[in-house]
């Protein structure tokens, strides 16, 4: 009886947004007379950081500090239509809508600034710190606040913008499955290292190493939150969770967290994550969406690592100690025959 170590790998990609196009989201952006901007959305922040991602996209596009933008979500009377927060669509779809709306608002803001400075709008640039200045002559500048006051009380302009993002719709061919399911894909490779106890059947994940290509990390901390949380969920799917432990038999379903198995803090393992950015041509600043895909590679990587450790293939999830022990028994014990590394 012994503990055996093994490593397994998986490589995956993931489509961004709802399948087959359409999938619209709208955004409205406007300034108050102090030059502070509000983004109105009906999108949902599930904890993934929708408000923060769209806030940074709006600030970058407007050319104002992020503190001067506030994102208001999910009121059907004030927020324009959004399909919802799912399908890894938030950053890409809503981000694009916000970018479009912010561009329109920025154009008005620059026109109003040009009128105040008596120059051509094309000669102006934002400094990202709350001012608009003449290119090459930074001493000739005006604050966004003064521009907003002038637009509201003197010029009669609305510094506001509307944005919608809609992917061209596509059909599925019923005979061949020909279709245009998505416009961009995120990518990942994950290596899991496990230890398998051939006496108890317990599988412990010791370490994960991964690389995720996500187009552009709008906010690296939010990306980290998704990738770390997602790998925990993937590990939980691989080894612990199901409301039907003997599927398709429906018996012994859990009713609460005492009965529903999930890994606890002590089961979390170190995870080295590398982030690559190959911008999506149609993503906001190239961004795709890391939300869903980060759970996916963990399941097969763990299963492959179990094989590498003890030589048994578990094809049915979750990989419980019971399944490992039964497979080891059928095999006549652990083997490292499959170990290639």
């Amino acid at each position: 009886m012994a503990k055996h170590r093994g490593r397994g790998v998986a490589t995956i990609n993931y489509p961004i947004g709802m399948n087959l196009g359409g999938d619209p989201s709208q955004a409205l952006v406007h300034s108050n007379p102090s030059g502070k901007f509000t983004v109105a959305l009906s999108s949902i922040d599930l904890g993934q950081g929708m408000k923060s991602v769209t806030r940074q996209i709006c600030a970058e596009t407007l050319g104002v500090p992020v503190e001067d933008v506030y994102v208001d979500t999910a009121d059907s009377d004030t927020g324009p239509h959004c399909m919802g927060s799912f399908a890894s669509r938030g950053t890409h779809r809503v981000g694009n809508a916000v970018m479009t709306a912010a561009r329109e608002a920025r154009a008005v803001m620059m026109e109003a600034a040009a009128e105040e400075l008596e120059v051509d709008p094309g000669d102006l640039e934002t400094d990202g710190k709350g001012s608009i200045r003449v290119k090459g002559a930074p001493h000739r500048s005006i604050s966004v606040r003064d521009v907003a006051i002038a637009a509201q009380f003197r010029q009669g302009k609305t510094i506001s913008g509307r944005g919608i993002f809609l992917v061209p719709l596509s059909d599925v061919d019923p005979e061949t499955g020909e279709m245009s399911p998505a416009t961009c894909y995120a990518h990942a490779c994950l290596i899991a290292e496990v230890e398998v106890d051939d006496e108890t059947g317990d599988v412990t994940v010791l370490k994960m190493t991964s690389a995720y290509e996500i187009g552009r990390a709008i906010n690296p901390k939010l990306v980290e939150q998704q990738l770390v949380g997602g790998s925990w969920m993937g590990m939980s799917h691989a080894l612990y969770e199901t409301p039907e432990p003997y599927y398709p038999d429906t018996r012994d379903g859990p009713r609460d967290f005492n009965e529903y198995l999930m890994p606890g803090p002590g089961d979390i393992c170190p995870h080295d994550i590398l982030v690559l950015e190959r911008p999506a041509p149609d993503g906001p600043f190239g961004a795709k969406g890391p939300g869903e895909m980060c759970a996916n590679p963990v399941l097969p990587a763990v299963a492959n690592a179990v094989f590498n450790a003890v030589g048994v293939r578990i094809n049915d999830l979750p990989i419980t100690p019971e399944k490992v022990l039964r497979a080891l028994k059928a095999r006549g014990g652990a083997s490292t025959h499959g170990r290639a590394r």
Partner: protein
Amino acid sequence: MLEFRKDIFADERDDNLIEIGQPTQRQDILGHVTGTSPYYDDHRFANLLHLKILRSPHAHARIRSIDDSAAARAPGVKRIIRAADVPVNLNTLLSLIQFGKDDEPSLASDFVRYKGEPILGIVASSERAALEALALVRVDYDQLPAVFDVEEALKPGAPSVNATYPKNTFEYYGKYDHQKLRFGEVEAAFKEADIVVEDRYQMSPIEHAPTETNGSIAVPDTNGRLIVYTSTQALFFSLDTSAKINAIQSNQLHFIGGTVGGGFGGKVDTLTEPLVILAARLIGAPVRYRFSRHEEMQYGSPRGAERIYVKDGIMKDGRIVARKVRAYFDSGAYTRLSSYAVVKCVAHIPGPYTIPNVHADVYCVFTNRTPATAMRGFGVTALDFALECQMDKLAVAVGMDPLEFRILNSYRDGDMKAHRREAKNCALIECAQVAAEKANWPIRDEFRRMSSRQGGGPARTGGGADRTRAPAIAPAVAPPTAVPQRVAYERPAAAAAPPSPPPRSASPPPPAAPSSGSTHGAPRFSSVFGTRRR
């Protein structure tokens, strides 16, 4: 630990940005860490009433009679909500985008098709009073045979689960019981393959396990409208679904949500809003309907189970020449969103690899269990599990390193995918290379030099014909070295791409013109509510 590899694809990026790429603190973090962010259930109302639901104890039964007379007289009970009270009782979620037929009642009246199916609701002055009244309802059932296994459900003589789809499968394009994928000639390629590997994979259902269970509160407004505080993941999806079921105009509803205690796909189904709105309208008072943890775990839709058969043909040099997939999505008793996941799954086959011959049949199957729904990675997670376990077995079968084997077969810019679109913006090879380097997983030089941006092209799939005769990758002779690739990531010109064979046929036959005009199994997911877009 998270670190960036900015050196890779640097030539495709503008990194001169101010706010993008900053680890800016979340706008809502103070509320979250101080416990003051308002979730739907943080809104307080005087005289709030509580809706609780009577659920079927049987997986499949005919309802002979319901006697709720004692419940109606129980202390605190304000109103009993029955199937006959629901203006549009039969609905399917994706009817909002014209996909599928209405197949699921808000409240069952004649049959129950899964254990936990809602039968009636009781609105009372407290949750306790509602639960005690529920215990007084007497329902007389005729139990019926039930089916729980997806393949059993497809056999002749299996119990019919869903009255709208009596054959236990969702109907695609008005004529098929599954979604097809056809690319190249898979059977011919199996005959020419050196090795064929076949296996069966099973994903069990998964509970979303959000911290906040599903719920909503409906409050009559002063102007005839209703304000609805909700945990939904999709505000307008839930609003339009609720308007349809209640047969009211969408502008009679004012939905407020936006901060949700975890969703993961389990809060799209609009499980509580339609009935809580109905109750508030019937009574004229604020009503709350929230799932208990038990309801969330057993009767809130889970990630559905999937059974996936994969058969692959490979050559001794490691090239995959054929992949055939047959998969069954367990939708439970009703459709909800599983029909959509099937199409997404088919689009994902054969995974991020360039394979010249691909064939798939994927079924959305009805069984007598809690209806399944979306969850993180919908339509893809279980398939990735099956395909990536299969990739490992293939690597063992040809004696290759599993990572090198994946890099060899990885899709590249310009390759033709099985759904007949050109691969672009690929980065799988680069992910594999840097992960291998970080994990000290040795891969040979030529695999370290490969690139998603070089060596791809439609000829790699013979333009849809097979490439079983393609010359192998240049023989691996270079010993592993430890040259780090930290910088620039420029590679020598592609030495490694397998030279392309002359395609056997110039191009795949053009696909038949997409069907149009079918009412159900719409060929597209038009996201514009109420209109079919062409």
